[in-house]
């Protein structure tokens, strides 16, 4: 069963990659990379159970869940404001 899950996740990753390559807008690519990171988290968790070392693997999965979120937010920030808001601590308000 775990093998089946891994294969399905690989297929789903491939489909998300197709969407990331095809675009057409930049938001499609961000969406694809976001679900891609969710799928990577799931795959690392499942791989941990396949190899029987899930304790260490789950730490990585956890880290990916957090880092993926940070990256998505950073990418969105650049796409909306043009940069990461360096030297502009109140960038959320003054560019509306």
């Amino acid at each position: 069963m775990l093998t089946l899950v891994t294969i399905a996740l690989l297929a789903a990753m491939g489909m998300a990659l197709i969407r990331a390559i095809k675009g057409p807008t930049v938001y499609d690519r961000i969406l694809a990379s976001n679900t891609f990171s969710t799928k990577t988290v799931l795959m690392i968790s499942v791989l941990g159970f396949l190899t029987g070392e899930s304790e260490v693997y789950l730490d990585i999965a956890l880290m990916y869940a957090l880092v993926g979120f940070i990256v998505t937010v950073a990418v969105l920030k650049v796409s909306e404001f043009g940069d990461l808001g360096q030297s502009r601590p109140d960038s959320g308000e003054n560019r509306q």
Partner: protein
Amino acid sequence: MSQALDMLSVLLLFFGVLFILVGSIGLLRMPDVFTRMHAAGITDTIGAAAIILGLMLVAGWTIVLIKLLIVLLFLMLLNPTACHALARAAVHGIRSPWQGESEQQQ
């Protein structure tokens, strides 16, 4: 009892796989970024939750269970937030969501 748990875990994993695949197909089929977000939402919420719950049933009462629980909690908290941020940015950037074939501009 453990037989029943195994059955339940296989069932959950199966539904997780089903929803992840359907969500990915939706990601390819849907006409614009907002509708694609709905499809990706299936993968990111129910699919991920079902797979992690299934793995939790396999894990038993160990530290792995706690870690899986934390992963699930983070996914459930962060995914809607990221999705909302993306939707908001896309509304500002695109302006006109796809409203069906008749009103489509291009």
